[in-house]
């Protein structure tokens, strides 16, 4: 099965209304409609979702793993960006 005729698609599922679509896997299909059907058949057999997106994998621009240092390491030393240094008043309840 040639990659050109059966390109790779990335599949995203919305588990239920109000949640964002999340990436759940990939599959091969000839076109968008067939990809959507295959996504339904491969990834929603156990009631995983209420909405599907399929995106040609070739349409995704990914960061280069070699850039991991410059892209992501600077964030590691800035723990003050996590909201863990604030006292949350009891009245606020669960956040």
């Amino acid at each position, binding site marked *: *099965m040639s990659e050109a005729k*059966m390109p790779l698609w990335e599949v995203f599922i919305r588990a239920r209304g109000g949640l964002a679509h999340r990436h759940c896997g990939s*599959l*091969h*299909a*000839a*076109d968008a*409609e*067939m990809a959507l*059907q*295959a996504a*339904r*058949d*491969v990834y929603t*057999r156990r009631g995983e979702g209420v909405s599907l997106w399929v995106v040609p994998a070739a349409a995704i621009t990914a960061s280069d793993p070699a850039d991991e240092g410059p892209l992501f390491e600077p964030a590691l030393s800035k723990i003050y960006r996590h909201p863990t240094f604030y006292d949350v008043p009891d009245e606020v309840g669960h956040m």
Partner: protein
Amino acid sequence: MPNPLVEYALRLADDALILGHRLSEWSGRAPMLEEELALANIALDLIGEARLLYQHAGAVEGAGRDEDMLAYLRDAPEFRNLLLVEQPNGDFAVTIARQLFFSAFMVPFWRALGGSREPSLAAIGAKAEKEAAYHRRHAAEWLIRLGDGTAESSGRAQEAVDELWIYTGEMFEMDLVEQQLAACGAAVDRAALRPEWDRSVSDILAQATLRRPEDGWMQSGGRGGRHSEHLGHLLAEMQFLQRAYPGASW
């Protein structure tokens, strides 16, 4: 004469079970992983429909036959399924054409059965209509791509359509059993579904750039237990376990 409601439920159950088993024969042999799961999903929908209908038939009959006995302990002449659904899988085009012809009929059929005066049948119809709608969509999209694909896929798709066409007439047959049940609002008038089936199948064949065969002589006999030689082989495999080890379970 058996209870007409039992007979009716068995016909519908046998259609679903035999086609479901046929599709299950693709397990491990499908052209690609995605399609392997698609065919197995459809098979499981059909077997689920068959189970509900066998349970209903057994309950109405009241003779102590459960779904397993009805599925596994009857011989070919006792099966009431359409000849279409027992036809061998052939190549992928044959499987898809068979699925399209059947599901294009079952969508309006289940929808109409949803209005049956028999509450169990109405409930089964309402559930199965959604399943059939997906089966039709799946088969239609494949047939369009096979027909409008390469010279080889188009040739095979046309052969499949031509080969199976003589089995499509049986879906619309109304014998005395179904006429009487339809008259009292329990069963569906199959003949009345013809226009919708014609429309949807013609539309899909046109999109697939396939030629619609002429309506000529049609095969018939499944409802009376007169089957093609293929059914016996199918049952031999499907029923083997229960025949060899009666009551086996795991």
